[in-house]
């Protein structure tokens, strides 16, 4: 009789175990997904044909069906592509004093490469049978070339990296005033090295 009257407490010791089990279940099934990737903008469908571009302002990159990289008709290894693209963009072919001279370019000024980064176009063609992995690697290398040049100029002007500025801008953690300033800075740098990456129709399959 005595035992019945005492009303024993419910043992909550195993509650923690149950909660741990649930926790582990969620840890295993869920993933903190932050997708990353290369952003591109496709050209609109109804375009006016682009004005003809001087051949020296075009940097031709292509992939054949065996994933071999061709740059300006010569074969090239992927690791050299970034430097080649930078040399092309940063060339500054117009001599000092002339119109359209690129004051901030540090390139060789070769007559075969671009006049001015604003005019320079990178044309990337890929065979339909090339692998997507290689395609992305090339896109990555070309983006790296642009980013490095943009970083260089933004370090010179604003003392910070262009990539960091962009990341900060998209994270949106700032007041409106700061955001406006940052946007202006980003646009200034973008105008210096506009990303003109043309991906005209891919080369059709060879039968």
């Amino acid at each position, binding site marked *: 009789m005595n035992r019945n009257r005492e009303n024993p407490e419910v043992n*909550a*010791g195993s*509650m*923690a175990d*149950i*909660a*741990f089990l*649930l*926790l582990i279940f*969620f*840890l295993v*099934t*869920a*993933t*903190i*997904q*932050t*997708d*990353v*990737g*290369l*952003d*591109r*903008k*496709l*050209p*609109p*469908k109804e375009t006016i044909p682009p004005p003809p571009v001087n051949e020296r302002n075009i940097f031709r990159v292509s*992939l054949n069906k065996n994933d071999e990289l061709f740059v300006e008709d010569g074969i090239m290894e*992927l690791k050299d592509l970034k430097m080649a693209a930078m040399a092309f963009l940063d060339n500054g072919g117009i001599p000092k004093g002339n119109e359209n001279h690129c004051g901030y370019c540090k390139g060789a000024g070769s007559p075969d490469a671009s006049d001015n980064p604003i005019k320079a176009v990178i044309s990337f063609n*890929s*065979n*339909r*049978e*090339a*692998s*997507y*992995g*290689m*395609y*992305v*690697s090339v*896109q*990555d*290398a070309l*983006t*790296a070339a642009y*980013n490095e040049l943009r970083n260089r100029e933004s370090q010179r002007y604003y003392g910070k990296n262009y*990539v960091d500025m*962009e*990341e900060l801008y*998209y*994270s949106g953690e700032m007041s409106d005033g700061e955001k406006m300033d940052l946007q202006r800075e980003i646009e200034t740098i973008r105008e210096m090295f506009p990303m003109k990456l043309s991906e005209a*129709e*891919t080369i059709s*399959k060879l039968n």
Partner: protein
Amino acid sequence: MKSIRNYKKTQPAISTAALPDIVFILLFFFMTVTTIKSETLLVDNNLPQANQVKKLEKKDRVIEIYVGRPNQDLAKVLGSEPRIQLNNKIAHMNEVGPYVLQELAQKPDAIRNLVTVSLKVDKNVNVGVVSDIKEELRKVNLLKVNYTVFQGNSQ
């Protein structure tokens, strides 16, 4: 005096009553910050790697398209040619346009022009399939694409 000495000698057990609460807080934290994989992948999806990446910040502004060879179970039925997966089912190339438009229609007006199409393409797929998809997207005037990758050194 005697009673105080007695009290010191018997050490009370540490109360673990708050432990479940702490664990539950952890549990709720994980439940809120993580997303359970909603889509079951029907295709192999071994993304390529790249360095110069940007984050796809907001989930609600993204439409996903998976491309890859059918996974082992489906390979018997579908063969090993790369297939497109839209929202849990294998689809044909000409369904891509209608699908993205339908997804787009479900988004609020304010963010419609900010929507990005995330192309999650296996790295062994041919570029031809990807350029066909891009062509379909151009037809429906959805021009922001993201080649979704794993972050790392490329090849």
